[in-house]
């Protein structure tokens, strides 16, 4: 028992305390959060654009089809199909080791890979949200003489946003955890440091447990925030 305790303390010290290594975990976590935020912005912008193109294309009046929109829609379809049909790790490796193999800024490469991946999923979520709003709502808007843009902006999108918030929150949490994959292309986020420390000390248990624990804590906080936001939006229904 005594020996076990001594071993435990030694490994713990090695993993977290020696040379102020705990700072590396925090630094890594900061990078992870930054990566998540940047990738999220790219993902949401891309996703909303793709979703709007896809649903605008589907809602065109027969006989008034816009050929440019048709081409853009086709590109969007290929994008979502390819991204959703291939593993994230493979995509990241392609970004990091083929397309940007000589780029030193691994953070940028990871951010791009994650954002583009996330965009495809967000697009489908947003498209589902736009479709979930009763057709009567946009008919009512259009019958009053509002144009397509105003109808979307004031009537459909605000209602769609509330409907997709749970899925969007999930996507955000998934994205947060998936940032760990960019350690494979050398972006210095938390798992990257944990692996480095493990490799240096030949002891992986504590670095990996520590990493897992930090992810878990942040996920619990994010889930709690998400629930709070949803409750607040739902309250506005009952005013």
């Amino acid at each position: 028992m005594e020996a076990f305790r001594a071993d435990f303390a030694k490994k713990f010290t090695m993993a977290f305390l020696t040379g102020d290594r705990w700072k590396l975990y925090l630094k890594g976590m900061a990078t992870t959060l930054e990566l998540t935020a940047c990738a999220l912005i790219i993902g949401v912008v891309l996703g909303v654009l793709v979703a709007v193109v896809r649903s605008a294309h589907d809602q065109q009046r027969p006989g008034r089809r816009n050929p440019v929109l048709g081409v853009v829609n086709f590109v969007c379809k290929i994008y979502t199909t390819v991204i959703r049909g291939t593993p994230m790790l493979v995509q990241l490796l392609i970004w990091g080791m083929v397309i940007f193999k000589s780029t030193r800024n691994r953070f940028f490469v990871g951010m791009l890979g994650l954002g583009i991946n996330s965009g495809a999923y967000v697009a489908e979520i947003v498209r589902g949200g736009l479709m979930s709003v009763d057709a009567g709502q946009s008919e009512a808007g259009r019958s009053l003489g509002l144009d397509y843009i105003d109808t979307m902006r004031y009537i459909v999108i605000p209602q769609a946003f509330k409907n997709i918030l749970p899925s969007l929150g999930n996507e955000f949490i998934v994205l947060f955890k998936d940032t760990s994959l960019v350690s494979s292309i050398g972006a210095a986020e938390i798992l990257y440091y944990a692996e480095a420390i493990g490799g240096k000390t030949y002891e992986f248990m504590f670095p990996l447990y520590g990493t897992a624990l930090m992810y878990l804590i942040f996920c619990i906080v994010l889930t709690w925030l998400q629930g709070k936001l949803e409750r607040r939006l739902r309250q506005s229904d009952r005013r």
Partner: protein
Amino acid sequence: MIDVKNLSKSFENQLVLDNICEHISPGEKVVIIGPSGSGKSTFLRCLNLLETPTAGTITFEGAVITDPKVKIDQVRQQMGMVFQHFNLFPNMTIRKNITLAPVRTGLMRQEEADGLALSLLKRVDLVDKAEAYPSQLSGGQKQRIAIVRALAMKPKVMLFDEPTSALDPEMVGEVLDVMRELAQEGMTMVVVTHEMGFAREVGSRVLFMDGGHILEQNTPQEFFDHPQHPRTQLFLSKVL
């Protein structure tokens, strides 16, 4: 005012409207009745192009609105529409529901629209609901709001698509009262309905549709007392 020529509409392979010709003059109250699936709602929805006709032309105030080059939003601003399921915007207050379109289409400024909304709400006796949300209203109240929302655009014609079919029986009266008043003021109205009493009392002309055709039309008096077509006679014997 509205002139419909050889209007046909099919969904997939199903022909819903078959070569319909009809003319609606200013001030007329045209009531369309018929069994479900007869195409009466589709006919109404074609008038403001919520449904795109498969063939034929619709002329509104001299403009051929079925022409793809016509700015349909501007045409729709002059045609109010009331739906079976109200379709109020749940994310906005009643006042915002009424003022959104007049303000966004540039018809008037927000203050003017607010004033107009107030006077319209007075008219349907719902001033106290101005800052309420649609979910707080009863069905009858919602439909009355939907009517004044359409009126806020100062339309030249009002289209009603079964406005009382989704209401509890005791709320039908309050909605019909508003429509009756509107008719007395001289509004041009096209009403798809199952309310035979309303058709007889308010209509200036009754159309009977079945199978995508207008089988018979007449003044309400003649139509209900002396129906000519056997299909009309059968229908009326069942609903009256």
